């Protein structure tokens, strides 16, 4: 596998919803929301903003930052667990809006782990398609705020989109290895149909995530003979600050090595990991030469995985 993460892009809606906007409606305190999730505010898309429009904005931002033209993209992968229609999925429309011509457009309806799976697939597809644009886009606010409100759901989710360009050639961070896994035994524990509310067995999600995420990261690092302490930064799906901290402790890594922005954006499902990557990349300029960055995600399915790249 020879693939490079060329760079990242993102889009976040302008509207901010702080904990004060939710606490009275949910009958909980602002402090309780922050304590159980680490979230202080999230972004909500406007009525005119859609999974497609946010995906396009993030994709455009990514192409500009990577200095890659639409004609260079041979494939686009769009992950979304909140797209409004059964088929076609958003990928073909996103490709058209970005001017990608006849580039193959693949939908991944995987929710939270979708962008991690997208990166892993893209790393294998660059040989056939050249540059692959991976996008995670989610409009979760209608789900989070659907009546009757469920406080465990309403406090968590925000809207946004993230994007990455994966290429067969550099510059960028070389994809070293990826490990993606699934277990349908827990499919009913986190689900969202076209009708009705999001159904989440929070205890089951946390119990499985706290076991599976550290294990898949450790397995990936072990097979690449890399100690967790040697990883420059971990870029994880921003599900819950307490979960991220627990994964860090399980790996015996300082919590500060896990980049987090959940405080500002909430859980943006499959968009979150790429939004975090865009922010960290912009601030740090990507991993230093010879340094490693480890991505990880977990979500409905359950699907989970990790990806290792080095500068």
């Amino acid at each position: 596998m020879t693939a490079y993460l060329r760079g990242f892009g993102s889009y976040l809606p302008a509207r901010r919803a702080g904990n004060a906007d939710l606490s009275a409606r949910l009958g909980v305190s602002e402090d309780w929301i922050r304590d159980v999730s680490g979230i202080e505010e999230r972004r909500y898309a406007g009525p005119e903003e859609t999974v497609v429009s946010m995906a396009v904005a993030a994709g455009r931002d990514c192409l500009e930052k990577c200095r890659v033209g639409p004609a260079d993209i041979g494939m686009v992968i769009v992950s979304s667990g909140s797209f409004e229609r059964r088929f076609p999925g958003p990928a073909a429309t996103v490709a058209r809006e970005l001017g990608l011509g006849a580039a193959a457009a693949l939908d991944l309806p995987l929710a939270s782990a979708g962008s991690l799976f997208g990166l892993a697939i893209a790393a294998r597809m660059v040989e056939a398609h050249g540059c692959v644009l991976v996008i995670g886009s989610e409009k979760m606010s209608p789900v989070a705020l659907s009546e009757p409100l469920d406080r465990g759901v309403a406090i968590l989710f925000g809207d946004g989109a993230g994007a990455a360009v994966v290429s067969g050639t550099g510059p960028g961070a070389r994809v070293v290895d990826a490990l993606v896994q699934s277990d349908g035994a827990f499919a009913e524990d986190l689900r969202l149909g076209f009708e009705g509310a999001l159904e989440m067995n929070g205890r089951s999600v946390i119990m499985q995530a706290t076991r599976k995420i550290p294990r898949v990261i450790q397995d990936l690092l072990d097979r690449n003979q890399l100690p967790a302490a040697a990883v420059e930064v971990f870029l994880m799906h921003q599900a819950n600050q307490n979960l991220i901290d627990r994964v860090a402790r399980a790996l015996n890594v300082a919590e500060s090595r896990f980049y987090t922005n959940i405080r500002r954006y909430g859980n943006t499902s499959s968009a979150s990991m790429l939004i975090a990557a865009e922010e960290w990349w912009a601030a740090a300029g990507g991993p230093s030469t010879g340094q490693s960055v480890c991505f990880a995600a977990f979500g409905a399915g359950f699907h989970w995985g990790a990806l290792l790249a080095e500068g």
Partner: protein
Amino acid sequence: MNRIDTITQIVKEISGNDAAPDAGESLFESGYLDSFALPDMVSAIEKAFQIRIPDGDVTPRKFDSIERIAAYLESRA
């Protein structure tokens, strides 16, 4: 120390609560454990009883009370 005593001791250590819950009491609903403490308890049980608990068995239903945990361990014996 019998199985119930060992589980009770683990629950007390993980919860930081010196008072022992009733064996049939829900560890979640009673406030002894929150969702994030439960994986720690499962790990402690694996260590104490020297077993590997498969992820498929790690469900709130099986680990919601000391009695249920004991029943699960009995099924694994």
